[in-house]
């Protein structure tokens, strides 16, 4: 048996917050996350071509990733329409859970993390897969941007 690396604290906290709630309240929390998705900085609103679309998501979701030169910290930027609160909510969870971590930490996060929010019953499988795809895309972009050690 392999021992799993513990989740980064900022992500583990979010999962605990979801797990502590009953199902309808978990949806409410996801809604709050969707409202808290940070707006894009001007360099992306003015140049939307710099972002990449995650086509596996049901609603248009755009993603960009930046690596801070010295520290190697990863910063994430998401855009999704207001009429897609579930997609925005997932993006906001990943933003709060991953933003500012380094490449190795994010790459070590298990792919099934979205399932641990306890939303699989309320959200259709297709949509849950959208969130897994977002995480997969983030990891792929990190591998492209950061050379393997």
């Amino acid at each position, binding site marked *: 048996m392999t021992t799993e690396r513990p989740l980064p604290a900022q992500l583990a906290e979010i999962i605990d917050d979801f797990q502590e709630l009953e199902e309808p309240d978990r949806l409410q929390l996801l809604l709050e996350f969707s409202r808290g998705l940070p707006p894009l900085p001007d360099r992306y609103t003015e140049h939307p071509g710099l972002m990449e679309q995650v086509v596996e998501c049901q609603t248009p979701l755009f993603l960009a990733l930046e690596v801070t030169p010295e520290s190697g910290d990863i910063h994430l930027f998401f855009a999704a329409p207001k*009429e897609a*609160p579930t997609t925005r909510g997932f993006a906001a969870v990943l933003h709060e859970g991953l933003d500012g971590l380094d490449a190795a930490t994010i790459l070590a996060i298990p792919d099934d993390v979205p399932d641990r929010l306890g939303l699989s019953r309320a959200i259709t499988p297709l949509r849950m897969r959208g969130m897994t795809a977002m995480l997969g895309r983030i990891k792929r972009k990190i591998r492209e941007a950061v050379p393997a050690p």
Partner: protein
Amino acid sequence: MPKAVDTSTKFSEYAHPERIVSTQWLEEHLGSDGLVVVESDEDILLYEIGHIPGSVKVDWHTDLNDPVNRDYIDGEEFSALMSLKGISRDTTVVIYGDKSNWWAAYALWVFSLFGHEDVRLLDGGRDKWIAEERPFTTERSMPKRTEYPVCDRRDEAIRAFLPDVINHFGKPLIDVRSPQEYSGERTTMPAYPEEGALRGGHIPTAASVPWGRAAAEDGTFRDRAELDAIYRDEAGLSDNDDVVAYCRIGERSSHTWFVLTHLLGFENVRNYDGSWTEWGNAVRVPIIRGEERGEEPKGYNSK
């Protein structure tokens, strides 16, 4: 007492104008006794970011589907749901939703399985209501619990199962999915993840009429003449036809079922909700790949 029928000229040309209301009609009747407005969307959180005042939410996934069996809820669960939403057996229910009423039509079809008499769609759905800047709120509705009788779900008339479809060869089938799903190039909508079907293609002889063609750019239904041109002239349906419509899991085809049954007046239309996720995985059922409808398969049905 059922509410008055919307007498808009456009609707009077439909076979059953009592099944559809305009945004104007709904605003005029909003809050009146005997009327409950239901929102049903693809996105489970959309209702929470704003809805028609007093409307209640019904989620197709968590409220209408059985969580274990691939089936709908039963009579007792439907009764409990209705009572929770403040709906009585004689309530006029108006359903609206996102994406040209895609899920709203699905909810309406499920209400029809339980024989709820007066259930209508809001023409143009959520987007048109918002575009016209009609009243909108985030306030949670608190419906008064009602008594709703336990009614058996009656599938026969409007729901087809796989064996029914096999026995249906020789009669019209409408495939409402995208052209790419029809040809077998994909097994799910463009821009959606591929999932759930081992084989791509369509049921032999099915005509391809993507569901969205029944809707105009603003999400309202096309008028009678336009719909007749699509389904009669182009797809070849004629009066008294026995029709089965299908898509991937039965939601988009509910929209087409609504159009054929209530707007065009076909009396024998069934929705095959097993749809491609069942057919494309079933062993030894015939499939056609490519753009041609294909020949009627021999030796499958009991004819």
